[in-house]
């Protein structure tokens, strides 16, 4: 049972209570002159339009097709991503970790919800909820089973607990059958979960 599933807020009367309290707080902050509600609108709009897994997908596709970029990316994620005009605001602390047939990487934040917003957007509910946060570091194969996949039993599983301001992006394995594809085509294949380590990238029609 996920935290979300149990959320008391899903009760309608409590939902409206929360809504009312949130509105009241915004009213007070506005009346105090601390914030301009229009600035909140603009911020929310930016989150809804500018960030998201498409940013990470472009970085992954580029790494798959440009060996020099990949090398730079693994050496210093922030610096390498900074060289791409279309992906911005990555911050200084991006660490990119590469999946290989020998090692599968998975990212968690056991203490709260640290996540590479600039690369992947806002984290999904499950990433911030107790089942994932509690089990990822102890039973990652059980967690992957909840996502419906398994990895070979002798593959190392490396779990990165994001306990500081470093942020981790998994570079998934490029699927077979995508030789000669363009960066744009490849980027279409890259899912958010594959960059967290809770999914694999598969090509349509290709064996996963």
């Amino acid at each position, binding site marked *: 049972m996920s935290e979300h599933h149990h959320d008391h807020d899903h009760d309608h009367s409590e939902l409206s209570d929360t809504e009312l309290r949130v509105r009241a707080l915004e009213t007070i*902050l506005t009346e105090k002159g601390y914030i301009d509600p229009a600035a909140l609108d603009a911020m929310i709009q930016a989150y809804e339009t500018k960030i998201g897994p498409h940013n990470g997908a472009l970085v992954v596709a580029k790494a798959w097709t440009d060996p020099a970029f990949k090398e730079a990316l693994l050496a210093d994620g922030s610096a390498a991503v900074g060289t791409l005009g279309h992906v911005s605001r990555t911050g200084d602390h991006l660490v990119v970790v590469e999946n290989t047939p020998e090692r599968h990487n998975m990212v968690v934040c056991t203490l709260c919800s640290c996540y590479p917003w600039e690369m992947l957007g806002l984290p999904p509910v499950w990433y911030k909820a107790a089942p994932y946060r509690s089990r990822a570091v102890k039973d990652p194969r059980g967690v992957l089973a909840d996502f419906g996949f398994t990895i070979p039993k002798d593959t190392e599983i490396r779990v990165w607990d994001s306990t500081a301001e470093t942020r981790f992006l998994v570079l998934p394995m490029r699927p077979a059958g995508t030789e000669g594809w363009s960066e744009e085509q490849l980027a279409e294949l890259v899912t958010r979960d594959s960059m967290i380590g809770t999914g694999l990238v598969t090509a349509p029609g290709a064996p996963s």
Partner: protein
Amino acid sequence: MNGVHDMGGMDGFGKVEPEPNEPMFHAEWEARVLAMVRAMGATGAFNIDASRFYRETLPPEVYLSSSYYKKWFLGLEDMLVERGFLAADEVKAGHASAPPKPLKRGSFTTNSVDRVLTRGSFTRPASAPAAFAIGDRVRMKNIHPTTHTRLPRYVRGHVGVIERIHGAHVYPDTAAHDQGENPQWLYTVVFDGAELWGADGDPTLKVSVEAFEPYLDPA
């Protein structure tokens, strides 16, 4: 603090439940809460470490039964009241009735939005050379502060290996309590699964944490 937020390795929370086509927000108020937290942080009312500590100190049953943004909201309200930016009776009334408290970096206006969208840097000049090198074996200290820390319980007392060095970063354990940035070297420390979880652990598992130098002893 040893709170319920420190849940790495705990059992009993059930299956992970991915949500197909999950929306960015599940209600409009969630977006307002996110924006208020980011905006008030940008005014200098609090830093990210303090905001985490206020969420961690919610009553444990509230922490576990509230949705993510509900926790953000509750932590924000507590923090603003406790730091004197709001009065409890203003919260009750739903309107401001006392003069504002001056903000370190001024009000949050449309001009401030861009600043929030650019992630800040937590790197700071180091005051001393790093005490550990890549490959060093270290034992995580057995500390149990009642204040904010980023050393999870499940690695305390355990031996790992320094894998990466990230430079000196703002130290959350002091920054959360307005005791300064107090920059400390930050390392990636990697552990064998069996070191953390004993004989029953997955033999293919390795887990790393990001650990500040004060958390480490030579092993």
